[in-house]
């Protein structure tokens, strides 16, 4: 759960305005939560401080599938309709020391399930996954399906460093 001292930032829905703009524009109406067919969007709890009541995604629980219903329904422009490739939520980061495919267990679920397969995640010539950061939008499907515990691929939200 996000907290006051969480330095990574929240993973915002696709098409989110930048943090300052979003925090001043979001009216916490929860329409984005209701419209998401995957129940991927949650609202920040009180411990999220200024982000209380604003939408975020926990990809381990339920990732975004880039269907783009949420920016369409947002009444205030906190979420702005964009193409899936421009969703700009964050970036996937792969830990090769933990990733099964780099360690003798042939997996590649992240590549298989990536909505932008062959653009955001590719396989090298030994069938090991590689994230192409320029193309990755940070939807979180890879982090959700990764079978290792803890996950070998995680999303770094676009927010704070």
């Amino acid at each position, binding site marked *: 759960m996000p907290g006051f001292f969480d330095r990574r930032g929240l993973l915002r829905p696709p098409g989110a305005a930048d943090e300052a703009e979003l925090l001043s524009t979001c009216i916490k109406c929860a329409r984005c939560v209701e419209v998401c067919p995957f129940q991927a969007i949650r609202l920040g709890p009180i411990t999220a401080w200024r982000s209380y009541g604003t939408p975020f995604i926990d990809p381990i629980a339920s990732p975004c599938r880039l269907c783009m219903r949420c920016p369409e329904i947002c009444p205030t422009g906190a979420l702005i309709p964009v193409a899936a490739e421009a969703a700009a939520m964050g970036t996937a980061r792969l830990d090769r020391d933990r990733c099964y495919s780099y360690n003798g*267990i*042939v997996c*590649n*679920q992240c590549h298989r399930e990536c909505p932008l397969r062959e653009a955001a995640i590719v396989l090298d010539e030994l*069938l090991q996954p590689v994230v192409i950061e320029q193309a990755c939008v940070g939807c979180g499907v890879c982090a959700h399906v990764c079978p290792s515990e803890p996950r070998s691929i995680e999303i770094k939200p676009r927010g704070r460093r």
Partner: protein
Amino acid sequence: MDEGTTRRGFLKGTSASLALVLIGCECSGDGTPQTMRGVAIEGREPSSWHASACPYCGVGCGLEVGVADDQVVGVRGMPEHPVNRGRICLLGQNLVGIHGTEDRLLYPSKRVGDRLERLSWEQASSEVAQRLGAIVEAHGPDSIAMYVSASEYIEEYYVYNKFMKGCLGTNNLESSARLCWASGVVGLVKAFGADSPPCAYEDFDHADLFFVAGYNLAASKPVLFRRLMESRARSRAALIVVDPRKTETASRADLHLQIRPGADVALHNAIAHVLFAEGLVKETEARAITENYDALAAHVARFSPAEAASVTGLSAEEIVRAARMIGEADAGLFLWGQGLNQSSIGTRKVTTLLNLVFLTDQIGRPGAGPMAITGQTGAMGLREVGALPHLLPGFRKVSEEEDRQQIAEIWGVDPSRLSAQPGKPIPAILEGIERGEIKALWVIHSNPAATFPDSHWVRSVLERTELLIVQDAYHPTETSRYADYLLPGAQWAEKGGTLTNSERGMSLIEQAVPPPGEARADLEIVMDIGRRMGFERELAYESGEAIFEEYKRCTAGRVNDIQGLSYARMQREPGLQWPIPSADHPGTPRRFVDRRFPKGKVRLNLYEHQEPVEPPDDDYPLVLITGLLGMQYHSRTRTRHIPALARAAPEPRLTIHPEDAARHGVREGAYLRIASRRGSVRARAVLSDEIREGAVFLPYHFGYGAGEDQAVNALTIRAFDESAKQPEYKACAVRIEAAEA
């Protein structure tokens, strides 16, 4: 009563949420320095490791099973196994979670009205024996049928075969390999004259071309595909992939032919046409090995690429390019899968592909030839042992008198006991039940109510089966719900035996843990019931090894001669490839090196394209392709329990092209109702241009156990290959009936 026989006691030893940790094992792989890791349950250090092989696909990866307190707590690839050299895939790695599930079948029971009544083994075995005996007495032995998994051991198939054919005297012994490799095998037999996959996995290192047709290797055979790609990285071999979907396999290809579903015969004929037209046929060699070279040359003269373009949905340029790549290859390997086999013209597709192999003389040398890599571990072994309606051990035939006599002698039965009439494949078994000809069906570790096409019909047939015996490790499954008798069978690691993989390599699986509860090894169950039916002498084997030694005698002088193999030798040298005719014979990596074929020469097969039995029309305008997902297996009796696997596939998802989606007003993630003339399924839409417009894809793993509207095979059609009787899972007509926003 000790803890093992109570469910609580049994589950107590297994953590409810398996936290798996990586465990290290420094292995050299195949020259690539890498740390090969396995997995183990956190906090449960294995006290012993046992040699094994993976029970899932037919590649045959060697595994080591870690055991503590009589439970499987760890799994890792076997470092020195020739097939995988320490590597495993996601399914193999998650074998740790399959044993201690809530739905393990732990004791025999019998259906009484709506309830299941627990029985002792004594009661269950004697009742089943008595009821089967009464049915044979009243209606003859052909009123009984047995349908077994294609993942069983050689010793088990041998016993099932002897029980049905040598004791009861019926040939109605069938396996789920019918649904998977029947067309492929019949194709090999029609072309080569006998069933004998000629190549070895090491051929990957010598090929400069891989032709992969109707086969998503990346998802179905990850370890083998990884091995292929490593060879390719070294050799820069070319890869052609033929598939209506841009699968992960296709995305690795130098040339992806995104073919219109079902048009493979037209493609193969067009390629053959180009090979002849551009002088790329190895004429001297091809004439030397084939019977009917001129007939084929004349036949394909009219199948030009330009003419094939519309039926295949490919451009003439692509077809010509593929033909040139094939014709110019020094050594080409041809792999195919269900895209060819699971078709009403599966045998035609396979034999016309094999024509290309023969025309370019890709046989009998390193890196060249066709590879038949099966989806289940026992699919090769059951053919060798003859556990099919028309076969006897050692690739003999029930219809040949001399074959029956030879086997009767080894079995110690009167030759007149063996029937000359081939038994029924599974489509005919189910129809036979419907007509009342077959009264009893004994299903062993298989789930036809989920996996056979037209699920509603299958369920109605199973419901009316007079005596349905289901022997399985799990209950409920879609099939076990209809059982009159439930018999708990052991599964992988709980029983030992021999497997043959898809390069004819044989390995011995050790029993690593005892079966849980009152579950017993499957061949013990069948032998016990058989003895109670009066066959004490015939089914009195002391051990699996005794069965293996008797089976060996059946192979003397045959194509799969294994006189030189023994349990001891398999333990020392896992993966030796038959034939192994003597103890000092090193095994046979490659067949037909001497270019002498079972019938002298090989046969080219002349066929034309034919549309699927149910093409799309105005009422049902979309072609449904069913296929597998990489992280689930068959009807999910095992894999649905593994959170790491299930989270990527919680429900059926329909892959649909964005143009088709737009036409139907379907958005990403919307729930749809998809219907065929036989049933309907509720699935979530995934929009992707990986699939051809006009076609949709559903994963076949989901049966009605996941929900009444989740059974993908409720949509598929009972249409079968003309010779092989394999179902046409890859093409039927569907429509989208409703879409939720």
